[in-house]
């Protein structure tokens, strides 16, 4: 069994919009692979081409160039779709249906037998925490509840690969945590999860690997630990308030007040040892020394700036 469950190879999409058929390059080049059993984050700012890429992978939009494979089959393929679950961005469902009716419809489309459909629908409604709204029509659902029923419908066919487009959109912090936990649970069950987002803290908590797309072009793909540079960006030293004499700050360093004391931020390359020795010699109390590594947000901003300068 192949280790790669999804492969985008040089995908590009150009739309022709308006009366004059103006060309809009939504995706210029997207190449990445998603491996079995991982949670893969597809990151990018709004309008960067995330949703269009996912739509190409789901067969909703035909690529202008490139090739997409899902579960070993060229997109679109019915056999592959049977092993796939998809949640679109800001999903809208048949508002006159109840969750049970909607999941029954989805189950029928996924070729699930009637008896099994009922069982799965009941289990999924409980799993996404909608037991209390079982008989309520979807038009009375809040945005968060719709997102949950959207995830339930994506799981109705018992898929190997779950693709979620902006699953955290519109959710409160508790809802976001629940979706994060659900994604990790899916991973534990042996499923593969691909999701797009621009909410970076969620990515750090859930993803094994990520791809970053800016202005329609993927700039980096890989495990988070490899993408984030190991080098120290700065060192933060916390000095206890009212103890001793603060040593002279090296060039580029800054000093500010904080509830814990005085915070000194030494830029990369500063003589941290020398500063600490001088602080101790001046009888300063040192409560914390924290080297600051590159965060996902730093990387994201760095990539975005690089893209902006190159274009």
């Amino acid at each position: 069994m192949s280790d790669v469950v999804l492969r985008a190879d040089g995908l590009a999409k150009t739309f022709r919009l308006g009366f004059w058929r103006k060309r809009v390059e939504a995706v210029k080049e997207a190449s990445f692979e998603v491996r079995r059993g991982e949670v893969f984050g597809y990151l990018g700012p709004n309008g960067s081409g995330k949703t269009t890429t996912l739509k190409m992978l789901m067969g909703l939009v035909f690529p202008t160039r490139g090739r997409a494979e899902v579960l070993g089959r060229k997109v679109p393929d019915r056999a592959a779709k049977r092993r796939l679950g998809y949640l679109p961005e800001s999903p809208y469902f048949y508002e006159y249906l109840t969750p049970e009716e909607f999941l029954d419809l989805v189950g029928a489309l996924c070729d699930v037998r009637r008896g099994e459909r009922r069982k799965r629908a009941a289990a999924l409604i409980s799993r996404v925490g909608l037991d209390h709204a079982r008989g309520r029509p979807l038009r009375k659902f809040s945005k968060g509840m719709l997102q949950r029923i959207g995830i339930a419908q994506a799981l109705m066919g018992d898929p190997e690969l779950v693709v979620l487009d902006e699953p955290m959109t519109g959710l409160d912090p508790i809802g976001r945590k629940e979706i994060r936990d659900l994604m990790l649970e899916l991973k534990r069950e042996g499923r593969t999860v691909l999701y797009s987002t621009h909410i970076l803290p969620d990515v750090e908590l859930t993803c094994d690997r990520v791809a970053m797309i800016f202005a329609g072009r993927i700039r980096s793909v890989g495990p988070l630990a490899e993408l984030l540079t190991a080098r120290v960006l700065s060192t933060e030293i916390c000095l206890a308030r009212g103890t001793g004499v603060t040593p002279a700050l090296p060039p580029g360093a800054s000093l500010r007040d904080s509830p814990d004391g005085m915070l000194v931020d030494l830029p990369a390359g500063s003589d941290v040892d020398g500063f600490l020795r001088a602080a101790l010699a001046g009888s300063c109390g040192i409560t914390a020394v924290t080297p600051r590594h590159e965060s996902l947000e730093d990387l994201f901003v760095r990539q975005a700036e690089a893209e902006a300068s190159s274009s």
Partner: protein
Amino acid sequence: MNRIVAIAWNTFREAVRNKILYSLLFFAVLLIVSALAIGNLTLHEEVRTIRDIGLFGIDIFGVIIAIFVGVNLLYKELDLKTVYTILPKPLWRWEFVLGKWLGMLLTLAVQMLVMGLVLGGVLAAEGSRFDVATAKAVWLLFVNVMLVTSMAVFFSAFSSPFLSGFFALGCFVVGRSIPDIRALGGKLGRVGQGGLDLFCAVMPNLHLFYPSGAIVGAEEVSVHRQFVGADYLLSATGYGVAYSIVVLVLAMLVFRKRDFV
């Protein structure tokens, strides 16, 4: 097959919740019932008037409902983006179009059944009955409505509801006037005649489904006297089904290549 049935049943469920459809049905029923009062104004022609007005109501409102349903139900899936959830399921796009069309047809069948029952009730109130000729006429109107729905679905596969409705209505008006358009040909010369013949051959001949008063097999047929026989019914139905299939296949081909942005 289950997938097509699931889409069809869901389309029916969606349609029967539409208040506009109920309004249209209400006006159709009102028109048919009003035939009772209008019939009483005539001299010994009560039943004839009721049957004429009733069939006219079923025809016109059937077509209006067919265009409304055909144009809206597919477009709504695209506009509200429910199609984004449905098409990534293990479902061919043609199955989706066919399922939608069958659901629309079921909706229209129920609506025409209601209108037919009301007409039967009104005829019974006047001491007459819903005879075989009337049943044949209603069947032909249903085939007519099926064809108009297919046209509406075809247009809504690539244009807005307004344009789709406009095109479908245009096809209905032209299709119903095919004999008159053909008659114009004699005044246009050979090339004009050829062009007009081609046009009439391509456009749906909806006049076939409203034959009352026309000459069929050298005899004038009327729903009040001698109406069309089983062979006419069969050939008209065959034409309607074949034309609908061709139009639906075209709609499926358009839908197959469409980007859902």
